[in-house]
């Protein structure tokens, strides 16, 4: 075992997850490719969504992949950063909105 959990080279081996479970792996990759094809949303829009979500789930592989994908699609760095803020806003909002739960519980338990 190497002394780091993440290796950039592992991203290139993503496909190998099918080796140990081909049926599910193949289904996943077919699904994945369909999701990112041009549809009602453009491949460009999907790439920005993917970049934002990559940050929310904090996946270094996805951040690497969708930064490169964005560059290839002509997405500008300002657009990328705005997309990340959308993800960050939802993530912080999701944390903060639970404040209401805290307030409810607080008031219920307090005299």
């Amino acid at each position, binding site marked *: 075992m190497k002394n780091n959990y993440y290796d950039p080279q592992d991203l*290139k081996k993503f496909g190998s997850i099918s080796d140990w479970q081909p049926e599910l792996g193949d289904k996943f990759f077919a699904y994945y490719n369909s999701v990112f094809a*041009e549809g009602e949303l453009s*491949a*460009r829009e999907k790439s920005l969504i993917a970049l934002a979500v990559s940050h929310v789930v904090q996946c270094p592989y996805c951040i690497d992949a969708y930064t490169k994908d964005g*560059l*290839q*699609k*002509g997405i500008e760095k300002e657009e990328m950063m705005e997309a990340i803020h959308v993800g960050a806003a939802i993530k912080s909002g999701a944390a903060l909105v639970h404040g209401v739960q805290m307030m409810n519980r607080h008031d219920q338990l307090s005299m």
Partner: protein
Amino acid sequence: MKNKKSLLSRGNRLAAPKAQLALLNDGPFADGRLPTFTEKLDQYNCGPLRPKLLEILQINLGYMCNQVCAHCHVDAGPDRKEIMTRSTLEDCLSVMRQHTIVTVDLTGGAPEMHPDFRWFVTQIRATTAVKEIIVRSNLTILLANKKFHDLPDFFVKNKVHVISSLPFYKKNKTDRQRGDGVFQQSMEALQLLNNKGYGRPDSPLLLDLVYNPSGAFLPGDQQALETDFKRALKTDFGIDFHHLFTITNLPISRFLEYLLASENYEEYMQTLVEAFNPLAAKNVMCTNTLSVSWDGHLYDCDFNQMLQLKISSSVDHIHNFELGKVQDRSIVLGQHCYGCTAGAGSSCQGSIA
């Protein structure tokens, strides 16, 4: 990276083709981490590559240019003095008269800077059966100096097909790659060409753009980028053009310098190798194009010209041109060829697969 001079005038070791080739053959290709281009072709039963029908004669009129773009595979610039002589231009004309050449593709440097440029184009039109004359124009040259101001009208008169590079439809990326002010001037030049009828929908005056990535990544989908470019240029500047060609940066000359300086070289080569597309390998441009250098030598393509890899034939100069001998050859390949076969492939006419 803002170098205002060519590798050659900076005395950079990469100015020497031999140094570039040594580097390209070393590292991951020498220690077996990556397969060489010929090994890859063999894997897919695509090699060796041989020419098909010769259709395009790409003539490099010289390495002088008014720009010094960071990615330039020619290492062109104002300080480059190599230029085609009148007698070599005559040799090119006589090949066009004796053989069926469909397209002549004039490149450089900035081909318009050649003092015989107008004479040569007029001669091709008047004395040969060449159907299409392409000029690879960097756009800014059209505004650079009064002596070039007649060029749009000259292009119209000679039905020249204009292909222009534009790295992006916004200022920042364009200027970073091509130099400050280039974007604004390019927009003005495109508007000028549009006003002459170039690039308008249904106009026979063809105006195409070339996009190449501003960095160590591959170009995206050609069709999608064309749609984005068309929308942006029309909305922001009222500009029309016909097609967008996406071109992959090949790891040679100043782009190689950039890859090394930014420590992207190995990753970029790996990206190219992994994106190898056998379909693109069958259609690489050297199969229907021949490149002539400013000094009259023959090459499989403009990239091989810059690496000084002459065609593998007993005839390797335009002066002694013999179609049969020239066509009966294997194409000279190297690791840089991976740039032509990655993803949707890349050629002077854009993607090929």
